[in-house]
């Protein structure tokens, strides 16, 4: 490599410093929150005067928090399943299809990633009010599905693009019907892409807050929405504890995705 760190002499220490600063910039808020969640100061004093698990106990003994965690998990899981079920045929269409406007359709499928979330949220709010699903489980699923689908379609269509169609043809000439070939050969071959798409879809719903704020009702609040509304009334370390749980969950899921990726690369 021309630009190898070993050849840069003193220059590389500048590079290392910049790298360390960027990492600190990204990690400090997370470390800060995690530290506060274990601190025993009710007023979020930093550094914490002492350590406690009090706030975690508060979360786990408060049915409203447990409720929200369950709501978020349920919405996330349903969104994940639907995003894959819809993402699969959509990916086949944009990768394998030979029709006019295919590229436009592909861009359209990922457009929820580009449209500002607030605008999306307001539009969904107006529409859901009209059809009467605001504040319902269905409303949350539908709203989150909109932002989850691009993740699922990108992951699955990338996997499908690297899968050689000749392999599917080989299965067909061996006697498998097109449906059998896709079910027994193509889908298992792109399963890591499907799994990554599923996990990213879950995450997209799991930590979504903007649409959630618009759609939430007093009875039905996802975890991020409850955090936000709690924070508005009261700055409490309980929120730090919930945040830390949320972050831990996200890290676990991303780690799973990374492991799948590495397995596939092998």
């Amino acid at each position, binding site marked *: 490599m021309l630009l190898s760190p070993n050849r840069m002499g003193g220059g590389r220490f500048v590079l290392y410093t910049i790298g360390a600063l960027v990492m600190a910039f990204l990690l400090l808020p997370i470390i800060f929150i995690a530290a506060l969640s274990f601190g025993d100061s009710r007023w979020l004093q930093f550094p914490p005067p002492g350590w406690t698990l009090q706030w975690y106990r508060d979360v786990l003994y408060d049915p409203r928090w447990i409720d929200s965690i369950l709501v978020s998990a349920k919405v996330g899981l349903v969104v994940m399943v639907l995003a894959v079920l819809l993402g699969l045929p959509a990916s086949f269409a944009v990768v394998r299809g030979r029709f006019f406007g295919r590229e436009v359709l592909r861009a359209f499928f990922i457009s929820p990633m580009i449209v500002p979330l607030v605008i999306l949220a307001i539009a969904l709010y107006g529409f859901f009010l009209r059809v009467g699903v605001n504040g319902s489980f269905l409303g949350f699923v539908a709203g989150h599905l909109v932002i989850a689908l691009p993740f699922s379609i990108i992951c699955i269509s990338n996997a499908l693009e690297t899968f*050689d169609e*000749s392999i599917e043809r*080989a299965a067909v*000439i*061996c*006697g498998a019907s097109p449906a059998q070939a896709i079910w027994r050969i193509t889908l298992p071959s792109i399963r890591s892409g499907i799994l990554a798409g599923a996990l990213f879809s879950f995450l997209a719903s799991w930590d979504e807050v903007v649409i959630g704020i618009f759609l939430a009702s007093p009875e039905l609040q996802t975890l991020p929405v409850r955090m936000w509304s709690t924070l508005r009334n009261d700055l409490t370390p309980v929120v730090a504890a919930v945040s830390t749980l949320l972050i831990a969950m996200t890290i676990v899921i991303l780690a799973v995705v990374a492991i799948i990726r590495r397995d596939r690369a092998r």
Partner: protein
Amino acid sequence: MSGRAPCVVSLRNLVKRFGATTAVDNVSLDVGEGEFLTFLGSSGSGKTTTLFIVAGFEDPTSGDVLVDGVSILDVPPHLRNIGMVFQRYTLFPHLSVFENVAFPLSVRRKPKAEIEAAVTDVLRLVRLETYADRRPNQLSGGQQQRVALARALVYRPRFLLMDEPLAALDKRLREEIQGEIRRIHQETGVTVLYVTHDQEEALRLSDRIAVFSHGRIEQIGTGSDLYNAPRSAFVGGFIGNSNFISCTVAEGGNDRCAIRMPSGQICAIRGSSPMATGQLVSLMIRPERIGLSTTASQAGPDCAIKVRICEATFLGESVSYKVTTEWGQSLAIREITGKSQDVPLNSGVDAYARWHSADTHIFAT
């Protein structure tokens, strides 16, 4: 093929157009029982398209494909009972070698014991019985193609299609697996439609070769037919090495006629087809059919032209010469060592290149 038994595969006036390009242009041929027939042609000549029409992955624009005398165009590919080996590696990546080969039988819902026996047999046929538990990515390219061949044979298809199965392999491996393919063809007696752009491979494997050019079959016949009696300059140039000399007909005729070489010299040739005086033709001679001598007056040859030796390469069983004619064209000549008593000629020496009229081929240009 005679009209008695229907041929295994018959192509009837197949045409395939993609927009403005005609990929397959009026192809007709018959493949007999147990025959190994090869499509030989350069890149883009329509070989794969023809094979894909037979397999059912493409629909012809017009024409018909018959198997045992019955059209199969309305049969979907998975019910055609054809075996196929592809140019690219197409093993199922998530299945073991055994499961790959078992796949065609498992979609046919065969009993487990039967599958086990058949897979073991066919893996032994391709000499990979000890690799049954491996994954495709743990196999070399040659082994992968042998597994693909086993997978295509295990359900005893009516015939086998092979689309450049060795193109991705290096030369040594290619020759080794050509031997395997020949052995397997002899042992199983399966009818094969094979595609390659490597003439040596075609000659080594095939009973008959169909030379493809621009979607058309230029000529179809055994390797020696194509080599000894090419019907067009294209086939002559494609199979084996050859020299082409542009000439004009000096004296037309049906039986024997004479042509004028670029130097103005007149040579008698064997008239293959009626030619009009003054017509432009191309004279083809194989390098090994040209003899070299230091004098023009030796007995036998019908034609001798003056040349200068440019390059002489000793190759053991033969000497390869590059010579220049009076009109500046370069010719290749190959002399078997020990046939003539002459010592190899050195470069820079003047000599006579001579040939029998029976060894020449004339093509209209």
